[in-house]
């Protein structure tokens, strides 16, 4: 045998072929030849390596170094560096997506490290077209043992002992299937291998056939011996040409070696195998349809009994096993059933191969022990979700399966747990879905698939799936009706109960599963005609507008910027938002998260463009609106919710009085958000506009104290309560009463109440400040403290990616020199003389997933440490203070200290004339959320008044017709957002001047041109 100094195992699976491994191999051969290395270095084309997302992949032995995403142009440098100079080329190593760390060897790459390879033990290691390499890895040893040392009964017993269950998806114990067939009498029996893998997103069987075809042959021979069969068939879909090609080579080689055919290993046992190519019908994966298809007939299922073990192919006793099941058999016989059963869970033994795909970083083929948690597969092996998106669910079992949502990331994946959660193991397709996937649309997609693939034989499947598809299509296109969900559920139950075969019986599963976990999405599609994932395009004009809680007409005002018509742009913004210049600065811009441009390079900077308009356009003139209606409305809280409601109601002719406890209006906008983010004059301009309409804002008046609540209710016909959430949550640790310990919003309020005193040093925060928390309030408090000269450290108990604060805020804080300690939680506040001097903390480690899909931090024993501090700011969340509402008023407060709403109403409390909104209903939320709540309440209050008066509904006066230009670039060139010019970080620490400076006209125009105009109808 020739000895080489290096072996290059280049992946030749279908995935890597598609990403160009054949071309790389060709160039590599030429390059090695050119450098005279052909005799020293051997290139082996292997089967699927598994890490398909990173293809083409090459592993270099003996070093074990993996190169990924190799391009042909990389080859000369690679050869020069690694094989001539002996310096591995780090540029082509695997790069860990979160840490950017470069990892040279497979064992250290998390994708591989968490796997347990049994079925895939030869993947990427052997040349699948060379039987000797398989034999060298113990190949056919199990078969030899079975044929020479074991009786049929022994084999069945060993397989039963392994606990192996059918990997095709149903999970029927393999040994039992074999036992039935071995006891069945007959002159002829068949061993069939099901390689008709058809689930969307599943490629386990293909990879096994391509990477290790002999393992399947070996399993089939052993099965044949167990049941006494002389003939086998592999039913493989014709869409797998490479698998068929390699399997044919493997069969020829096995025949040549006397491992199949007549008198195998001189034992007198005969068994041969033929490949039968399926013509692309999904239903032919069903066992009776598969057999009918091999018989040359239209592949349609037939009723069972008789079961195949009694009467299968051509009426003869037959067993049908999946590729993965059979690939396990050789090792089970060789190493024993007990070895196999040593991993897994109580009822699900061994390992399972999954085709991990969808919205996950590491798309590929993975094999894990049964019972591995979904979170481990998605986050450890899969590397999490790309683009910072959130995990929504994993679809298991393809069109017959269901979804496992975020709250079950800790679920151990085995047959029982998966079924309990409403999915099925299926053959192992695991499609990861991020937050941008619509549950209803997914259900529709799978139902469409089932309807297409239904053989048409039985009525429930043929016609029932069609009608379910119609219902789902209607819901997705905004034509859903009340009762549709119940009809879907009812039909699903009946179809499951009465369809002829597995396809029909499981076809409703994705619908049932999505209704189970995402019923609210169905309801919003039907009732509100909204698709929160912004997928169902019939429901919206543009994703940004659909995502915006107030439905701002984003494409229109961006188009007007491009056309230079800023005044019109301002008017368009004012139609839906009374605070555009506020939102242009502090909005959390959900719109940008769904911007289609983001799929190309980066979302359009909608927020910045909004600010550009409000900074540069002439302000629309506000005319007072005369009071035309007799009902008087009282509003509590002059924050964005209260003021929006007041403005809308005033515009409808109502007399509105707004009561504010604090000295100036604005709520959190004035008292929570620091002025370096939102200059006060900007805010006040927009509040003045509302006053201008005729709204009376009375500050320094606390309802419930200065005016008794009951009196307030009597004075006004209708009341809107929007007091916000201005009370910080406590840390719940010892020492919180010490001086120098602040709540986040309390600190910000104290600062804003008397900015001058703080700036002059009359009030002090101290020189070392610890801020606990990871939300926007924590960042605001930290950046404010830093501006007061403190050395600030933020303590957060999770990782940066888990922080609820806006990314740009975190970055800005870092630029301003604020330190952020991750995975740290306070345990105790220490003090001297009643004043805080230190904060004791523990290091945390992330464990299980919580229901939001974030990992729960758990303390690391013995990791305590204490930071010396002068002040601690606890900004871990806020709650409303609703103590002003008198008991017995009929307004109810729930256990989250928020107002309870009446039934399905989005604004009415349990009191007939009292409405509520904003943070006091939802808990701490965003400005735009509060504005939306204000709009909603105004609409609901007006509606209630008109209904009570027997008046027709409100008809808005006609708005000025602003023609929106339609101008787009012929070609879209990739380029990121225009950067927002900022005040120098050094400057910032000294003042409260606005940090973001706003776009110039040129920048705004360029940015506006990036809009793809999804709103256009062609």
């Amino acid at each position: 045998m020739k000895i080489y100094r290096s072996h290059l195992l280049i992946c030749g699976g279908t995935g890597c072929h598609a990403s160009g491994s054949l071309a790389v191999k060709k160039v590599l051969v030429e390059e090695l030849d050119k450098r005279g290395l052909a005799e020293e270095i051997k290139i082996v084309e292997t089967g699927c390596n598994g890490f398909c997302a990173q293809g083409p992949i090459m592993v270099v032995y003996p070093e074990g170094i993996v190169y990924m995403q190799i391009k042909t142009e990389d080859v000369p440098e690679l050869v020069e560096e690694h094989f001539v100079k002996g310096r591995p080329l780090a540029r082509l190593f695997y790069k860990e997506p979160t840490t950017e760390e470069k990892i040279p060897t497979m064992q250290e790459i998390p994708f591989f490290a968490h796997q347990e390879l049994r079925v895939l033990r030869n993947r990427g290691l052997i040349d699948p077209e060379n039987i000797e390499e398989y034999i060298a890895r113990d190949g056919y040893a199990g078969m030899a043992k079975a044929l020479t040392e074991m009786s049929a009964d022994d084999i069945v017993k060993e397989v039963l002992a392994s606990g192996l269950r059918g990997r095709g998806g149903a999970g029927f114990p393999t040994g039992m299937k074999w036992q039935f067939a071995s006891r069945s009498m007959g002159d002829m029996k068949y061993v069939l291998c099901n390689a008709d893998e058809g689930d969307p997103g599943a490629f386990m069987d293909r990879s096994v056939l391509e990477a290790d075809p002999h393992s399947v042959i070996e399993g089939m021979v052993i099965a044949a011996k167990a049941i006494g069969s002389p003939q086998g068939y592999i039913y493989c879909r014709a869409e797998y040409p490479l698998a068929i090609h390699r399997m044919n080579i493997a069969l020829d080689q096995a025949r040549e070696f006397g491992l199949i055919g007549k008198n195998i290993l001189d034992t007198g046992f005969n068994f041969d195998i033929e490949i039968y190519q399926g013509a692309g019908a999904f239903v032919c994966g069903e066992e009776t349809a598969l057999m009918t298809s091999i018989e040359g007939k239209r592949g349609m299922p037939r009723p069972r009994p008789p079961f195949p073990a009694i009467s299968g192919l051509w009426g003869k006793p037959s067993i049908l096993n999946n590729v993965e099941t059979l690939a396990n058999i050789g090792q089970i016989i060789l190493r024993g059933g007990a070895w196999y059963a040593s991993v897994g869970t109580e009822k699900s033994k061994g390992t399972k191969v999954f085709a991990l795909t969808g919205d996950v970083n590491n798309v590929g083929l993975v094999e894990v022990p049964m019972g591995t948690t979904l979170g481990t597969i998605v986050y450890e092996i899969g590397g999490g979700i790309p683009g910072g998106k959130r995990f929504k669910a994993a679809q298991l079992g393809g069109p017959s399966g269901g979804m496992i949502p975020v709250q079950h990331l800790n679920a151990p994946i085995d047959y029982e747990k998966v079924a309990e959660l409403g999915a099925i193991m299926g053959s192992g397709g695991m499609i990861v879905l991020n937050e941008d996937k619509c549950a209803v649309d997914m259900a529709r997609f799978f139902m469409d698939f089932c309807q297409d693939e239904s053989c048409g034989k039985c009525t429930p499947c043929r016609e029932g799936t069609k009608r379910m598809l119609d219902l789902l299509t209607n819901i997705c296109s905004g034509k859903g009706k009340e009762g549709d969900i119940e009809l879907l559920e009812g039909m699903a139950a009946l179809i499951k109960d009465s369809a002829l075969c597995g396809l029909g019986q499981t076809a409703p599963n994705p619908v049932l599963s999505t209704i189970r976990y995402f019923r609210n999405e169905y309801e919003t599609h039907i009732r509100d005609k909204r698709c929160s994932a912004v997928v169902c395009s019939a429901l919206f004009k543009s994703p940004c507008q659909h995502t915006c809680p107030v439905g701002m007409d984003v494409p229109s005002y961006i188009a007007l910027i491009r056309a230079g018509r800023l005044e019109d742009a301002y008017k368009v913004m004012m139609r839906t938002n009374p605070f555009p210049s506020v939102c242009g600065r502090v909005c959390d811009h959900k719109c940008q998260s769904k911007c289609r441009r983001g799929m190309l390079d980066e979302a359009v900077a909608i927020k910045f463009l909004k600010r550009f308009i409000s900074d540069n356009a002439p302000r629309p003139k506000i005319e007072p609106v005369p009071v035309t209606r007799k009902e008087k409305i009282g509003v509590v809280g002059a924050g964005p919710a209260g003021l929006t409601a007041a403005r809308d109601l005033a515009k409808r002719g109502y007399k509105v009085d707004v009561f504010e406890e604090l000295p100036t209006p604005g709520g959190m906008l004035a008292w929570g958000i620091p002025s370096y983010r939102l200059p006060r004059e900007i805010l006040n301009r927009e509040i003045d506009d509302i006053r201008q309409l005729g709204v009376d804002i009375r500050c320094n008046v606390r309802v419930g104290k200065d005016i008794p609540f009951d009196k307030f209710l009597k004075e006004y016909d209708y009341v809107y309560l929007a007091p916000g959430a201005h009370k910080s949550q406590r840390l719940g640790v010892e020492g919180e009463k010490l001086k120098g310990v602040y709540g986040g919003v309390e600190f910000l309020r104290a600062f804003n109440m008397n900015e001058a005193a703080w700036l002059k040093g009359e009030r002090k925060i101290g020189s070392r400040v610890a801020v606990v928390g990871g939300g926007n309030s924590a960042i605001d408090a930290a950046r404010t403290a830093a501006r007061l000269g403190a050395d600030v450290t933020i303590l957060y108990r999770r990782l940066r990616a888990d922080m609820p604060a806006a990314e740009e805020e975190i970055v800005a804080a870092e630029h301003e020199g604020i330190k952020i300690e991750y995975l740290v939680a306070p345990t105790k506040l220490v003090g001297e003389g009643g004043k805080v001097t230190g904060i004791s903390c523990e290091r945390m480690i992330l464990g299980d997933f919580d229901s939001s899909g974030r990992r729960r931090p758990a303390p690391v024993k013995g990791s305590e440490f204490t930071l010396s501090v002068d002040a601690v700011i606890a900004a871990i969340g806020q709650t409303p203070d609703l103590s002003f509402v008198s008991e017995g008023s009929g307004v109810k407060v729930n256990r989250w200290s928020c107002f309870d709403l009446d039934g399905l109403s989005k604004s009415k409390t349990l009191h007939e004339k009292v409405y509520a909104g904003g943070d006091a209903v939802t808990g701490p939320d965003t400005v735009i959320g509060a504005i939306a709540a204000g709009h909603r309440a105004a609409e609901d209050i007006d509606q209630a008044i008109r209904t009570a008066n027997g008046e027709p509904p409100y008809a808005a006066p006609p708005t000025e017709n602003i023609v929106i230009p339609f101008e787009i670039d012929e070609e879209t060139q990739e380029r990121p957002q225009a950067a927002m010019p900022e005040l120098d970080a050094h400057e910032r620490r000294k003042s409260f001047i606005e940090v973001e400076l706003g776009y110039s006209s040129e920048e705004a125009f360029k940015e506006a041109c990036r809009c793809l105009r999804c709103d256009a109808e062609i």
Partner: protein
Amino acid sequence: MNKILITIDGRQLEAKPGQTILEVAKENGIYIPTLCYYAATRVVGACRVCVVEVENSRTLVASCAMPVSPGMVVKTDTPRVRESQKLVVELLWSAGDHNCLVCESNGQCELQDLIYWLKIEKPRFKIEAPGYPLEKTNTMIQRDLNKCVLCGRCIRACNEIQVNEVLDFFERGSKMKVGPAFDADYIDSNCVFCGACVDACPTGAIVNKQSRFEGRPWDLQKIRTTCGYCGVGCQMDLNVYDGKVVKVTGNKEYGTPNQGSLCVKGRFGMEFIHHPSRLKTPLIKQANGEFKEADWDEAYDFIAGKLKSIKKKHGADSLAGLSSARCTNEENYLFQKFMRTVIGTNNVDHCARL
């Protein structure tokens, strides 16, 4: 043979091994509705109308396809069963153009019967017929696939009873259709127009074209007769409306020789019955060359007289007999006997030799 004890709807019943639930129920007067079930053909369990509850079974089972097993407990009349049957029937109803007003099968339609029996007021789903064109390209069988419920009975009648192998399913899902290869019309296919599909069709999808608008099923009088086209002696029903034969149907209950099957002639070759040119009495040619109507005695006397005179004048071998394939074996036997012994010649032959 061992007996199996099973329970259906609370009744302890005896069954033979290998019988299906449906067969046992039928034997014992328990009604289970069916649609795709078609005696003398393979059981396919396709329509799911005959579903029943079987204790310890995960799902409902098709009673036509499920063999009985000892101790089996079956329920045929539960809300679960009825709901399922209703859904299936409503789905079939709304997937086609089942307009009984103009349907030839109104009154003898199994879908209509099922809807009535299940007391369905109207389907939950919008009626959406596929809109296939009516097949009008032949004179005997009219196909309207908009009324097809895809039970597959015509296919099995064609392939298993007649073994003509013309029909099968094609396409998948709700686009599935029945027809000859390549979706050809019957006339362009290998179809021999035996009409087995017409008899098998439970709805108005495949009907006898000749009798279209010639009488409603309840107006037709069925008269059993023997087909006169050949010697097989096929039993059939003449469907008579107002003294006129409007169509011929097979009838499985008559048993041998044809078990309800007919051929193209027996089923469709009936135009002659009421044809104005049809000969109804013997005709004797007159000296002037014209034919004159005669009665049978007259005619036989005339024939006998002629035969006698020829034999006398020219000898027996101057006569020859040719008999017809439309006659029975017995008639043919009698005929050759007549030629050999009465006429005295071996000159006798049969048209089937030609």
